[in-house]
Structure formats: structure tokens, C-alpha cells
């Protein structure tokens, strides 16, 4: 584990990714305590105050401190994306490994249906689901998880299929091992790495999708300081107060970049090809 971490941060993208994520983690954990102002405190005189000593990153249309909202908002943005990805990945992984292990026509039927569901664009599926479940951050998380599961299932299955064809699995079957042992001890440990890498990269999509849903008004709801919602709110004032738009947009982009970098870094660090 430590060895992996060292290998990870030895690469520039791994180092940048880990550093950014550390910052984000600090914001998620201590944002509330560190924020200079209460994130929802309105200030009539401070409306559209540009960045300066009073509000380091400026203030929004209610005179709320953008830095504080950003720091507190990290908690309503990043963990949501993580949860959505985790739930979606777990569901997808179970479907994928199960389908690969079952094989044959069952596998065919599961995967064709899975592909069919994937034909509905993720955002559309999420939109429909949120409309059904009702607007809100929690429902957006569910919707993203559902939208992610088929893709994860497909990825996992292809990896699992490859693992299932490995001789050590065949050896286990020839030996007369049970299905549980083969799935959990022989196959699963060997599909974990690709799943973790893929999920890490998908977190960045989840961050963006979550922000997009909030932007479209069906995700997090005011007065939450979710970043996508902040962008949506600031958009109508973007000429008066562009900082209100640029700051949360940059936060979303940096978070997405961080997870992308981490995913790529992990992929490299876990790739046995680079080992001499």
C-alpha cells in the first residue's frame, strides 16, 4: 500500500492529483470550521462585491461570501459524487462479475439488456430518474448511481471475462472449487484494480454530472452551496460578477481533474508493464 502510494506520487500527474485531492478532502472535512463566514449569511451591502480583503473570492447576489460557500459546498458536492460512484460501481461490478461467471446465454441476455440501457444517454436517464424521484441532492445521487451502473457492469465484465479465462481460474475449476471461492478469492481480487481505476476516473464524471443536474435545477437545491448550483445561480449575473461563476466552475473542473489525474496515476502505478 505504501509502496503503491510512493509509486503514485513519483509521477507528476499522481502527485498533482493527490495534492489537489488532499486540498479537497480538507475542504470536505473542515470546510465548515475553516470558512471565514457563514455560507448562507446574506449581506445587502455586499452584493456582487468583487474579490478583495473582505471576501477573498468575492460575494454573490445575496452578498454571501463565495469562498465560504465554496468550502462548505465541497461537502455537498464531492462526497455526493463519491457515494454515487461507489454505489454505481458496486452495483455494476456485481452485475459484471456475475454475468461473466455465469457465462453463456445468461451472460448474453444480461449484457445485451445492459447495452440497451446504456443507449439512453446518462444525463437523460439521470434527468428522468430525478424527475420521477423528485428534485434534490439525494435523488440525484441515486440517479447518477443508476446511470453509472451499466457502464461499470460492462467494464467489469470484460475484465472479469479475461480473468475467468486465466489458467489459475481454470485450475480452481479443475480442482473442484466452489463458485463462491472462485468468484471471491480467485476472480474478484484480480478485477479490483481495474475497477478501482475506472471508478476513480468516473468520480470526475460524477462530479460533473452532479453539478450539471444542479445546474439544470434538479440536483441540489437552494440555498445549498453545491458548486453546480452556485454556477447556475451566478450565471445570470455573470457580467456583473463573473467571479461568482468562475470560482465554483474552477472548483468543479479542478476536482474533476484531480480524480482524472489520480485515476491515470493509479493506472500507471498499478500497471505491471512498468515494473522492471
Amino acid at each position: 500500500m505504501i509502496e503503491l502510494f510512493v509509486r503514485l506520487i513519483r509521477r507528476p500527474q499522481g502527485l498533482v492529483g493527490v495534492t489537489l485531492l488532499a486540498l479537497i478532502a480538507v475542504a470536505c472535512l473542515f470546510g465548515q470550521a475553516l470558512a471565514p463566514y457563514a455560507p448562507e449569511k446574506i449581506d445587502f451591502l455586499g452584493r456582487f462585491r468583487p474579490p478583495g480583503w473582505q471576501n477573498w473570492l468575492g460575494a454573490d447576489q445575496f452578498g454571501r461570501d463565495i469562498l465560504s460557500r465554496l468550502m462548505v459546498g465541497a461537502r455537498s458536492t464531492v462526497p455526493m459524487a463519491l457515494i454515487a460512484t461507489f454505489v454505481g460501481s458496486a452495483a455494476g461490478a456485481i452485475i459484471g462479475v456475475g454475468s461473466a461467471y455465469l457465462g453463456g446465454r445468461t451472460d448474453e441476455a444480461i449484457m445485451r439488456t445492459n447495452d440497451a440501457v446504456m443507449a439512453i444517454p446518462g444525463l437523460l436517464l439521470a434527468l428522468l430518474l430525478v424527475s420521477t424521484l423528485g428534485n434534490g441532492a439525494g435523488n440525484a445521487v441515486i440517479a447518477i448511481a443508476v446511470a453509472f451502473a451499466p457502464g461499470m457492469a460492462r467494464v467489469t465484465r470484460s475484465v472479469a471475462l479475461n480473468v475467468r479465462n486465466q489458467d489459475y481460474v481454470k485450475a480452481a475449476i479443475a480442482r473442484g472449487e466452489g463458485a463462491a471461492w472462485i468468484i471471491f478469492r480467485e476472480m474478484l481480487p484480480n478485477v479490483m484494480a481495474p475497477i478501482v481505476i475506472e471508478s476513480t476516473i468516473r468520480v470526475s464524471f460524477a462530479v460533473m454530472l452532479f453539478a450539471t443536474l444542479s445546474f439544470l435545477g434538479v440536483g441540489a437545491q437552494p440555498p445549498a452551496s453545491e458548486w453546480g448550483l452556485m454556477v447556475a445561480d451566478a450565471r445570470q449575473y455573470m457580467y456583473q460578477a463573473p467571479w461568482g461563476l468562475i470560482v465554483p466552475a474552477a472548483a468543479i473542473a479542478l476536482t474533476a481533474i484531480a480524480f482524472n489525474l489520480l485515476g491515470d496515476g493509479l493506472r500507471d502505478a498499478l500497471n505491471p508493464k512498468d515494473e522492471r
Partner: protein
Amino acid sequence: MLSVTRRLFLAGTAISLVTLPRIAVADAPKRGGVLRMSLDQAASVIHPMLARVNPEYLVTELLYSNLTRLKPDMTVEPDLALSWEPNETRTEWIFKLRPGVTFHDGSPLTSEDVVASINAILDPKTASPGRTNVGPIKEVAAIDPLTVKFTLSGAYADLPVALTYLNARIVPAKVIASDLASLSTTANGTGPFKLVSYEPDRKIVVERNAVYYDPARPYLDRVELLVYPDRTAEASAMMSGEIDLLLTTTPGEYERLVKAAGVKALRTPSGQFLNINLGCDQKPFNDVRVRQALALAVDREATVGFVAGGYGTPGNDTPLNSAYHFYKNIPMKKPDVAKAKQLLAEAGYPNGIDLTLIASDRPATRTQLGVAVREMAAAAGFHINVQTMPHATYLDQVWKKGNFYVGFYNMQPTADAIFNLLYTSNATWNETRWNNSAFDAVINAARVETDEAKRTALYAKAQEMMNAEVPTVISAFFDLLAAQRSYVEGYTLHPRGSVFRLDLVSLGAGAPKRG
């Protein structure tokens, strides 16, 4: 009586008063040209009796005519009706129609068309939103081809105003008899323009009606209505000259448009307001002290800033503001946290009170009001959780049923209309369930009162009652904001928000040539 007759007189001579001075004083409006106007949302309904939102009202106004229409000062002028006369008790009204008017298909307008149209609006099966807004009509009958008689269920002085209602457009009787639903896809009216093409979410094109009853109007050859769902994008398009006129914009964009070259930003005070509805029949708002406490917690000046970007006027918990006739200037409530706390304590909430305020997501200002009120009222002990929901869900689950939610209303033509729409016990949308019989009595008395001074006094009383008892917190009225290119002439931003009069618009020097 005096006021009514004076209005009637004015109405009767409206043609000469409205159109002649223009010809005499200014240069004659230039004929021809194509006007591109942007709509803030799709005009998804062109059925004149089913239209519900401003872009749809605009389209049906272009294609159809009412008997009467509303001027910017909220008085009426003739449209298809040349003149009208009530009986002594104002329970029967005789309307004389303008002769020689034809529909777009060439057939002549007769009193049969008017009778059929009004009956269709009143028919519940039509499901027209105008059904409850065109006045207490009991029966409508054709006396001769150009005379129509309205029989009312009670005295009603404002019938000519009510008939300006946006769904009370006149359509051919034969269409009503054969297939009224066909008006959802085709149009046949007496309006200044004829329908050329209709794509609800993209573009609607109308062209000049050459046989409009006023041979001079309209001045434009063609009007193209383009749907711009994004306000920022719309303002940008206005600044780059892609569109000549926009229907409405936000304070933020307005500030940009004011500074833009070649653009004339338009602004007019209006009676459009955002409010917080309090369910007066349930805890905790059945206690007047809680309502008063909330009213005292809200900073009205600040609210105008937060939700209207400063482009509006503070409200004093009555639906009337200076844009209305009969507005009574009561000293504006000042935020008073101590008093509010005290009232709340007296009502039995010494430790404050937890509430959930529901706001629909359209328009976004509803949520903004919620967020602002939440923060402003916190000091007084109101712990408000703002919950937003899609507009459709809101209409289904909250509206008229909820106990504590944000409302949003256009200006109505008369004081009577707004009070009877929202606040009397038998109001069409009795949201607050205030059910104050004293208040009802005042409004009913004002309705039939003919003496201007007495009527003013009655409406003043009504406003004072609402101000004191706070069935609803009305803290901000909006100015209507829009913009046009400088070369657009003759357009007036109507405070009603849903009257446009593009038949008076022409293109002046500098207008781009458009095919």
C-alpha cells in the same frame, strides 16, 4: 357613475385620440419591414382560449382581437366593439360591434361569432383559464348582426375591462361549431397579423393582415417570434442586433442592456409581485401575531434588491402598488426584530418556530425570495427551511393547498380583479384562506360603488386591513424590464405585462433589411 361615463366617452373616441395625433405630430410611422422579437419561453399554445403565458398571449393578440382592450394607463379602449352601454343597474350591457371587420379567411365578423366565442370560454369543457376572469356573465345574446347583449349575474361595473381578458379573443362561430380544437394548430382571427408558420419551441412567423379594420395598421410586414429560453443569451442576441425587441429580461441583463449601444432598455413599474402565502386557517399562521411577526422580520427595501435587483418597489403586504388605481399609500413597514420576537413569544413561540417554506423553481426569483426571507427572518426566531420543487409538482401538490409557500402574480387590470382573484373568501384562488367577512364586505361594496371618492375610501380600507392582518407577506413589486433596438418605434412596455400592441410598432431609420 361619473368615472365610468368618462371612461366610456374616452373609449368611444379612442380611435381619433390614439391614432390621429401620431399622424399629425410625429412623422408617419414607416410601413414595411420585418420585426424579430424574442420570447423568453415557448409559445406552446396558440389556441386563444387556452393560452396561459405571456408569449402565448402575444401570439394570440397578434392573430385575434377582443371586444375591448387595455391601454397602458389600465383604462379600456374599443377593439372589435366600437361602443358599449350598461343599463342602470349595470346588470345588462349592450356592445355595438365595429362594422366591416373580416376574419383572416375573409368571412365577416358578426354578433354570432361574439356570442359563440364568449359561450365557448364559459364552457367548462373548453377548460379555458379565462372562464372565471371575463366577469359574472350569465348570458350573452345577439340582438342584431352588430349588437350583442350581455346579461350578468350581478351588478358589475368593470365588464368592459374584464372583456380585455387575455383569453377573451373572438373566433369564428363556425370554427367553434365544427372543431374548436383545430385552433391549436391553425388560426383564424381578426387580428392585425396572420399566421404564417408555427414551431412552438423555435419560431413563429406572422405576416401583415392586409384587410385589418384599420387600413393604416399594422405597419410591419412581418413579425418573427424567436424562442430564447436563456436570458443571458437573449440579451446578447439583442446587443448583437439579431433581435429587435425582447419580451422580458432580468435585472442583471437589463443592466447590461442599458449600457449597450444601439439598444434602448425599457422599464415600467408594474403590479407584478412575489409574495409569501400564509395559510390563515392552520397553525401557526391562524394566529395573526405570527403573521405580523413575520411581516416585521422582512426588510422590504432589501427584498427589492435581492429579488428584483433593485428594479422594483417595496410592498406593504397589500397587492396594490402605485401602478394600480385606488392605491393607498400606507407608511411602509420597517423591520423590527424586537417587536417580531415579542409577537412570536406572545403567540406561544418564545424559542422561535421551525417552518418549511416551499418555492417552485419557476421563476427563479421565487427561490431567491425564499432564501432572502429565510436569512432575514432568522434573527426574529423563524427557522425556515427552504424547499424548492419543480413547478409542475408545486402546482399539483402545494399551490392552494400549502400552508407556507411563495406565490407570484402578474398585474391585474383592476383592484377588484386582484382582490377577487386572491383574497376574498370566495376568491378564485383563495390561497390564504383568510376568509375575513369584513374584508369581503368592503370589496363587495367597492365593486358596485359608483362614487369615485367612496370607492377610493373603500379600497383604502381594504388595503389597510390586509396591511394590518397580513394574510400574505407581499414585500416586493417588480418593474417590468425589456429592451428594443433604437430603431424600433411605437412600442410601449405595458404594465399589465401581457399586452403588447405590435400593431403600433414600426421600424425607423437604421433598421436592418430582412428578407
